[in-house]
């Protein structure tokens, strides 16, 4: 593995420190791959699981653990849609907007979410409870229209189901 680079001076780490358990988890991921960069996406997900999102300051910290440049980590962190680069709510709602859902009531479901939560895509409720995002086909087309809340997949979901469904995510 490459010698760790003192990247914090370049970008300014603002004192961000990886949680020791996260660092251990990232190092464990390295066992699966020929080169450490391959663990980059998983490392971002590990940090996101703890903080809810990936702050800028975490990028050089992850880069140091992996022994790669911060640019490589930043490039990846800005590419993948499930890596969040700004704070999100306690629960993230991913609404499937692909064809089968579009054909079976996506528009009504999306509008009901907007109405009930008072937010649109990319926004978080004032109480930091929910963030709403679109997602490409969830592979639940026989249960369309579908959505995910955190790790749970639901479908078919109607506007009437929403209040009861959202109650499960305080």
């Amino acid at each position, binding site marked *: 593995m490459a010698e760790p680079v003192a990247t914090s001076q370049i970008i300014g780490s603002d004192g961000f420190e990886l949680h020791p358990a996260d660092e251990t988890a990232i190092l464990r991921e390295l066992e*699966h*791959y*020929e*080169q*450490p*960069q*391959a*663990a*980059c*996406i*998983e490392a*971002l*997900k590990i940090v996101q699981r703890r903080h809810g999102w990936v702050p800028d300051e975490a990028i050089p910290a992850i880069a140091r653990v992996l022994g790669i440049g911060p640019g*490589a980590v930043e*490039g*990846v962190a800005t*590419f*993948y*849609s*499930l*890596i969040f680069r700004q704070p999100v709510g306690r629960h993230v709602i*991913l609404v499937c*907007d*692909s*064809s*089968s859902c*579009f*054909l*079976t009531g996506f528009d009504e479901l999306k509008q009901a979410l907007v109405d009930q939560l008072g937010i649109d895509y990319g926004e978080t409720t004032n109480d930091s409870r929910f963030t709403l995002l*679109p*997602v*490409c*086909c*969830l*592979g*639940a*087309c*026989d*249960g*369309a229209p*579908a959505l*995910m809340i955190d*790790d*749970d*997949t*639901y*479908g*078919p*979901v109607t506007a009437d*189901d929403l209040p009861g*469904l959202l109650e499960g995510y305080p």
Partner: protein
Amino acid sequence: MSESIPNQRRSVGYRSRLMQTEAERRADTHPLTWRLRDDGEAVWLDEYLRKDGYQSVRKALSEGDPHAIIATMKEANVRGRGGAGFSAGLKWSLTLQGGDRPRGYLICNADEMEPGTFKDRLLMEQQPHLLIEGMILGALANNSRYGYIFLRGEYVEAARVLNRAIEEAREAGWLGPDINGSGFDFDIAVHTGAGRYICGEETALINSLEGKRANPRAKPPFPGQSGAWGKPSVVNNVETLCNVPAVILNGAGWYQGLSGDRTDDGGSKLYGCSGPVDNPGLWELPMGTTGMEILDRAGGLRDNRQLKAWLPGGASTGFLLPEHLELPLDFDTVGKEGSRLGTGLLTVVPDDMSMVSLMRNLEQFFARESCGWCTPCRDGLPWVVKLLQSLEQGQGEPGDIELLDKLAADCGPGLTFCAHAPGAAMPLQTALRHFRHEFEQGVGKPRGEAHQDPIPVGEV
């Protein structure tokens, strides 16, 4: 028949399921699904072994002839179930191996994100050991050192099931060093993604596996020559790999016979149907089953609506018409009709759906999911979306439809690194061919008045 399964969707929690009961499935006719349980629980190692699991690997290891595996796969002509339909055996025969070459990788493409596709999810959530067995056979044939299941991040349940099954297989000696006393070593890791449809493109997938942005790579070199970390790498879809154990155990002749005289393509297929139908779902049926039979099994359209058009296998396939329902759904027949079999899961469009609106939805998807590597795709698709939005609102202007023709042609095969842009072009071109009048009705402004605003790149 499928009607005997009651609709159990009282709760809105989603569960993947097959629409055929155990009584309807047999080992010799339903190689992909005969072991599945009616209760939808995963088939773990004990049960898999009771149902003849790992017999195929046992046979292949005792014979110890990787070339024989490839020869059988080629003869069976197992065509790639990720949608491209390339012969898996032929792909394997092109993997560089032997001499002083390093052993490479066997990568399972489990990034199922093609809109309208939900088949690999079922196989992974309910029958993980069939995939593992298929991967071991693939590793034997290609002399692969290590395997990855590149799984989309949203498939949380599949990740849980696969990781537990891999652990079971390892403990029982089906993975790891010296598999079943054969001297062959191979292990598997589940690599979960973080979104982006483009990861399903095989070279973009390899970049993503390496921890990079999922941009496609130029071919050649093909992954079999130089893939993950420059090593010979094979990328196969979940369903393709799940076909391998039965092919090796029962032979190419049996596999070819599964489809009867319906088609030249052999085997069975996980077909499906979604959209506004009464019973959307999945069925394992002989390759070459007609769209009509699948639509019938799905109970036809809801609320007495009529069928207007259908996509045979995902958003990147071309629209077919009701008259095409009689055709056998195989790779070549569907290809001749200006579409592609794709994943073989039908998306049904009812007569009251505007094709302009549906195309706007599809192209918004392709524009958003473009990785941005090639100009026709990155800049062309948002432009297509803008034109479709105008037409949808009756605000199009003369020339818009011809412009759509041109933008679609610019996304054609060979003009971009990967198949994302051609995949975006095919539904658009077929929609413009079959339903041009609907697009023409959206032209409501004189020339030069409609498109004053810049293209909202990134906001489509």
